[in-house]
């Protein structure tokens, strides 16, 4: 009853093929964007922005990239951490070598470099499938981190072995560096992830996305009908790595401020994979939901005892947090194996019919 589509007529193909064909959807999305852009910076305090929302946006972008590769193209990859490191170090070298370069352009160039690296490490996917490919991508993860650790050129020969985001401005506003405010960094991350989400949504609805899904579902049959596996898989790796690279650059420039290779280790790869799977494989919205879940739940679990007034020793709290986190993952998988996005879809279906059951 809330979601009545009665009375909404489409008079052109374009409007019929729109991403949000139902007016209610469009209104909700518009309101959401307005809230995200205007309300959140005004209302949220620095802790929320710095420790919750900015990482959420950055991880969403990484999850988006991985979802394209794993959810849509069916290539399980555990090299996300390594690719994020490529993006971060490339952005660092670029901003170091070209101080006048706009930092956003540096992000995009870093993404491009990561795309090339991603294509290189994606070549084995032509021969290896499934979990074997996942484990093989770990080779790229470990190798890339070793490379950045070993070759001092990547850190500009810093004695500390870490890369630091230099202060940079865009249109006069400080965007990176310690003086950049959390609000500005949040808005930058939001802008980037919104743009990429739009691009991704259009990609998956078009020919490229369909070729990916064909490879994912029945790759031999797809090859027979003319979908070229080399090109399709390489494109998947390239675009996915591009987004992951930009996310990696954002990770250092907009969130952490400085990083060593340990910040991109295998835990990050697993974390982003969890986000993609919990959010829903093969769903753009799922990337965001998954990232939200993985970022929010630990923070929520950390803060709940304070709220309820329970004073627990920190170690016990952390252990219970871990157990609850694991339990929640299992619970969600049993309740809805296809992820939170599917839950959302079911919710929308029900809303369309509400208050009728079917």
């Amino acid at each position, binding site marked *: 009853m809330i979601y009545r589509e009665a009375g909404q007529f489409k008079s052109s193909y374009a409007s019929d093929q729109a991403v949000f064909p139902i007016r209610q959807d469009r209104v909700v999305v518009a309101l959401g964007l307005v809230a995200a852009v205007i309300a959140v910076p005004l209302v949220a305090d620095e802790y929320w922005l710095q420790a919750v929302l900015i990482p959420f946006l950055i991880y969403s972008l990484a999850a988006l990239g991985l979802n394209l590769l794993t959810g849509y193209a069916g290539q399980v990859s555990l090299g996300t951490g390594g690719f994020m490191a490529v993006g971060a170090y490339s952005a660092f070298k670029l901003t170091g070598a070209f101080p006048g370069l706009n930092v956003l352009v540096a992000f995009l160039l870093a993404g491009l470099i990561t795309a090339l690296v991603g294509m290189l490490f994606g070549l084995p996917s032509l021969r290896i499938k499934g979990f074997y490919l996942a484990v093989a991508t770990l080779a790229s993860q470990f190798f890339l981190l070793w490379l950045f650790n070993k070759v001092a050129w990547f850190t500009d020969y810093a004695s500390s072995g870490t890369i630091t985001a230099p202060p940079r401005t865009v249109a006069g506003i400080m965007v990176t560096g310690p003086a950049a405010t959390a609000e500005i960094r949040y808005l930058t991350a939001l802008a980037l992830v919104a743009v990429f989400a739009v691009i991704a949504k259009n990609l998956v609805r078009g020919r490229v996305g369909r070729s990916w899904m064909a490879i994912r579902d029945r790759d031999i049959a797809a090859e027979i009908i003319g979908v070229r596996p080399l090109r399709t898989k390489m494109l998947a790796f390239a675009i996915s790595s591009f987004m992951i690279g930009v996310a990696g650059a954002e990770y250092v420039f907009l969130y952490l401020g400085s990083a060593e290779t340990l910040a991109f280790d295998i835990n990050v790869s697993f974390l982003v994979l969890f986000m993609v799977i919990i959010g829903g494989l093969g769903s753009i919205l799922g990337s965001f939901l998954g990232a939200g879940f993985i970022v929010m739940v630990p923070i929520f679990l950390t803060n709940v005892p304070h709220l309820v007034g329970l004073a627990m020793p920190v170690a016990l709290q952390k252990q219970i947090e871990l*157990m*609850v986190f694991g339990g929640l993952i299992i619970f969600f998988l049993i309740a809805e194996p296809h992820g939170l996005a599917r839950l959302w879809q079911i919710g929308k279906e029900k809303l369309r019919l509400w208050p009728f059951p079917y």
Partner: protein
Amino acid sequence: MLDLLNTALIGPLRDMGGSPAFLVEVIIGGLAAGLMYSLVALGFVLIYKASGVFNFAQGVMVLFAALTLVGLMERGAPLALALLATALVMGALAFAIERVVLRPLVNQEQIILFMATIGLNFFLEGLGELAWGSNVKRLDVGIPDTSFMVWGVQINRLELTAAITAAVMVAVIAVFFQRTRIGRALRAVADDHEAALSIGIPLNTIWIVVWAAAGLVSIVAGIMWGAKSGVQFSLSLIALKALPVLILGGFTSVPGAIVGGLIIGVGEKIGEVYWGPLVGGAIENWFAYVLALAFLLVRPQGLFGEKIIERV
């Protein structure tokens, strides 16, 4: 160019030939390390072979088994009793996992089951630390970690014991799978859950058996690794070292786990000792994976894995 070839290829080879006793030591060290990896890989193989689940939580199960054993021993139980109790605990764990995690997810896709084991991983991590604390614990099973010399080559007692244990275990498991009725049932279940159900194989019992078996393997692996480096959280990270073994040997092959382990172990050590110094060392981690990857490119299902039959 020739210079590069010289340093990259001839140098290390000449180095190897220059001191053969040392080369033998490196190889033996690699074999021993490889067998230690195989112990962990066996757990993975058991579960994958029999239920099609890639158990991400295997590393944590090794840790949990070791923690339980040491915890009980610290509270005064003699070794034999502690072992028995730990085996019971792992059995109970298998029962609980089957009930809570696997049964509701029957016949879901592989990746969903994989995710469930990830959730299990976090849960067991928290539970293990909660129950037994986070200190480093010393695991003493009566095998001294000392070395003796044989023909100019140093051999470590603990590693020798681990090697023998691994060999015995593999033999037992291989016989179990090939010769017993339950083994056949396990292979049927791994092939297709629903088909196995339809011909009357009790799925739930089979799964409990398998996870309990993997639990027992975890105990052995936990003992060996715990004796080597103390029982603590990082033990769960060994699973990462066992993965190249798995992909080289094939996910479904028990002898593959051993052979893969040996190849990875030796390859890793030789790479680190002879080629490592050329690039600054610490190449072990990715070298193992690259080695496994190279094998995979030639044989995509691993050396001994089941040939992947693809249908259109």
